[in-house]
């Protein structure tokens, strides 16, 4: 019997991953307000490492405090966090998985700014507010761009110093890189706006800066949105096409990227990412955590809360998804990019069925898949596949309740159909808090008056 392609190693230029399964970036508000990570995060990541994923791509890790998406997520903006990240890396490694840090910057897509950021508009490529929630922003100056490029380079350096296995630049899903890349968002008139080459300049500058900082021997992959579909809010421009992204992918490869990770959509969340349902009852219970974050959030909250208004949002949201599958929603785009480059390509979007993943890889659509929600539902999903199951007994339903709870509640599976009762569900959510850190009596020097 030939070996299952899912469980064959994937070799990058600087990294070998034991199988083709990557835990895509996902996390909760597990960490400290200052950006230092906690035991809970370690527990969270190890859950998937233990489950059999070949590599863990961290949740987005801001390279600057001003680039946080949601406060309470670990950052990599300080050198003194290196030992913490090292601890995390060691923990993941102990379960036989690799750990790739996703370096990110929210730009204007800052869901819960936190105390560091709430008093200032976020930095972006543009001064036009974000389209879905009305997050305010200000176009970055040249100096701010330079400073941010440097922060990414330093973030990668810290990751390397922490002994992590690589970094991923989160240039997809509407965050700062997308805000530069997307023709639907970037309205700059300088070297960082206008033509595709100009819009890609910021990303390519960062790749080059990272290479300059960490050398060519450290794994660097780039996550991009193959198609923007930026007109979720109907009056917005459509943004980048697949052809644009294919070109960007080639440039990334040339600039020194070791792999590409292909997603869809220039917002997060986006009707096509993560694909699936939209629970109005859930978001009505959690969106209040974001009301103070934007100038259009109250409008959204009303649309979510009042059943009479929901059909309007439902129509706006789901009109793009018609005719697309949930599982492997971005495979065609990944294939197109894979054809254009000579580095491995990962595909994300609803992957859960072994046979489909196998077929996708064997047909050359991608080299590996990244999975978040299906692994949250079943962290040991790879073990089911290894045992020959195509799907686990209680698969992810793509209800997206995990996503909609993120701004307010601990990360985990919130699909009531998967649990006998609410208490069991909460128990599952609490498992990551189980292995407690060793608490210590602070020294007088630790206490700042």
């Amino acid at each position, binding site marked *: 019997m030939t070996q299952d392609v899912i469980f064959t190693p994937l070799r990058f230029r600087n990294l070998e991953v034991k199988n083709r399964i990557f835990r895509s970036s996902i996390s909760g508000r597990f960490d400290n307000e200052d950006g230092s990570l906690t035991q809970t995060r370690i527990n969270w990541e190890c859950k998937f490492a233990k489950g059999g994923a070949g590599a863990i791509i961290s949740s987005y890790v801001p390279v600057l405090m001003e680039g946080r998406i949601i406060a309470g997520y670990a950052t990599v903006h300080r050198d003194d966090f290196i030992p913490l990240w090292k601890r995390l890396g060691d923990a993941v490694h102990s379960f036989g998985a690799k750990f790739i840090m996703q370096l990110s910057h929210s730009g204007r897509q800052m869901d819960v700014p936190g105390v560091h950021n709430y008093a200032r508009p976020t930095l972006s490529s543009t001064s036009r507010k974000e389209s879905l929630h009305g997050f305010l922003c200000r176009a970055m100056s040249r100096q701010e761009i330079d400073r941010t490029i440097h922060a990414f380079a330093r973030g990668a350096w810290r990751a390397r110093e922490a002994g992590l296995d690589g970094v991923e630049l989160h240039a997809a899903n509407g965050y700062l890189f997308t805000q530069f890349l997307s023709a639907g968002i970037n309205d700059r008139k300088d070297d960082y706006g206008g033509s595709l080459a100009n819009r890609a300049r910021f990303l390519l500058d960062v790749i080059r800066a990272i290479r300059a900082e960490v050398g060519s021997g450290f794994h660097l992959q780039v996550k991009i949105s193959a198609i923007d579909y930026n007109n979720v809010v109907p009056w917005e421009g459509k943004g980048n096409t697949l052809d644009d992204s294919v070109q960007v992918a080639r440039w990334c490869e040339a600039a020194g990227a070791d792999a590409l990770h292909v997603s869809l959509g220039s917002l997060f969340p986006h009707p096509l990412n993560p694909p699936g349902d939209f629970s109005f009852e859930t978001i009505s219970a959690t969106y209040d955590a974001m009301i*103070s974050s934007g100038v259009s959030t109250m409008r959204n909250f009303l649309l979510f809360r009042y059943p009479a208004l929901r059909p309007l949002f439902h129509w706006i949201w789901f009109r793009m998804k018609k005719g697309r599958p949930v599982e492997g929603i971005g495979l065609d785009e990944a294939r197109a990019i894979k054809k254009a480059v000579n580095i491995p390509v990962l595909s994300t979007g609803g992957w859960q069925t072994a046979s489909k993943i196998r077929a996708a890889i064997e047909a050359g659509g991608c080299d590996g898949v990244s999975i978040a929600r299906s692994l949250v539902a079943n962290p040991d999903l790879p073990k089911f596949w290894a045992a020959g199951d195509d799907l686990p007994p209680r698969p992810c339903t793509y209800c997206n309740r995990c996503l909609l709870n993120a701004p307010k509640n601990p990360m985990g599976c919130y699909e009531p159909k998967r649990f006998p009762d609410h208490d069991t569900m909460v128990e599952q959510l609490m498992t990551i808090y189980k292995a407690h850190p060793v608490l210590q009596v602070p020294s007088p020097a630790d206490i700042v008056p």
Partner: protein
Amino acid sequence: MKPRIISDHELRSMSREPPVTATQEALQRRWRLWTPVYILLALIAVIGIVGAVLGVTLLWIVSQNRTPHYADIVEHFKYASIGAEPTSGFPYRIWRALPKLFPEAFGGRDDYAAFGFLYENDANGRPRDLPIGIAQREYRGVEIVWFNCATCHTGTVTVNEGGKTTRRIVPGMPSNNLDLYRFVRFVLDAGADERLSPDSLITAMNATGKKLGWIEEIIYRWYVIPTLREGLIQRRSRLLPLLAQQPGWGPGRVDTFNPYKLLQANIPIGSLDPKELVGTADFPSIFYQRPREGMHLHWDGNNTSLAERNLSAALGAGVTADTVDHASIERTADWLLDLRPPPSPYRPDPAAVARGRDVYMRACAGCHGSQGADGYAFTGETIGQVETIDKIGTDRFRLDSYTERLRDFQLSEFFKGTKYQFKHFEKTNGYANIPLDGLWLRAPYLHNGSVPTLADLLAPPAQRPKLFLRKSDELDAARGGFVAPACTAGQAGCFNTQDRGNGNGGHAYGTDLPDADKSDLLAYLLTF
């Protein structure tokens, strides 16, 4: 320590917390920028909502067109609307106030009896608010009253039965009490009278009914009263030149067609031939219409269709093509088809009646039909046909008042394009031979009411009374008709046969009979 005085500016700035987040700051800025717009929008919304509510209410009020329905057909005839109120009527509250404002015209009474309107009690024995012939309709939120068929076709007769005198109201007989001329003159003059100004009228309205609410008062002061006065002044300017040159009609009479020419047909009075300006005639009875279908109707026989005649009469009462209530008129018309006149109370000598019948059958029945034991026979060679004016020789003013020009207008304009459009009007050259059923209630006689009794009608024209009072409903058992004492010219209510339209000549049939035959004929006629 001396307390520090906080300045107004500081107080104001303290009252508003500075924003905590950049989003709040932006929202505050946006709020400041857009506040005037929001206020404007809110104002527009409030005005819009208030306007919409008022508009809908107003539309609802304006769309109101309701009238009481009477189950009993006689009540319907007397009190139901035929659709004359909206364009011709008086608001009820003003109708009630007029007696107080114009006591001299009402003889000091607070009702319209002074003009000959008839009041009766309702089923519970209480006096009715409105007289017979005055119908009520709520139109555009205002109660309006005006004429119906009974105005001109309900009269009274005082009969002595078993030594007891009773006054009976008879629907369908001519309105022998109504002095329409005086009423019309009063109404037109009131329109030009300063007492009809809003201040005094509203005071009188409040004194004669529930005090008007402020909205009602506004509506009356600024819309209803000015509109009414405007309409009255317009009608006055058209009608007064006509009325001023006509002899007073007196009770029980009307000029049907001349006001019609001026008001409905908008013909300027100056363009009318002086010969056509007096068309005064008696109100006719309207009993038992079924046998009359196809006969020449109206005094001059200018129409052979009952329906057209009815509708034409309704126009005279004030309906228009837009306001006419066809269903109501048709209900009345259906009832009139078989409404028999009450039997004559006279009990003349049967032998004389029998002899008189022979005379009548020879001399009169061919034109008028005859009364028999089982009712009136509407048969006769020329019954319902028009007799030429040369032959009949009666006063020709009424004949001349109906002209080809008016006929053309009637046929081309009234109810134009509807199934009701007039087709049957024609200009005749005489007066119609009319059936004589209910004759005892139809005095005075001839089309213009110029001959007080049947006995007088059988006298040669030169011997007929030239001046008589025409206001009694007391039967004259000896002469057949109502008691009509002699009077002097110019005396109030004195009918002067010398006036234009009042001539009592012509219809000399039977005047040359021997006295005995005349006496027998009269006895027979008293049984009609």
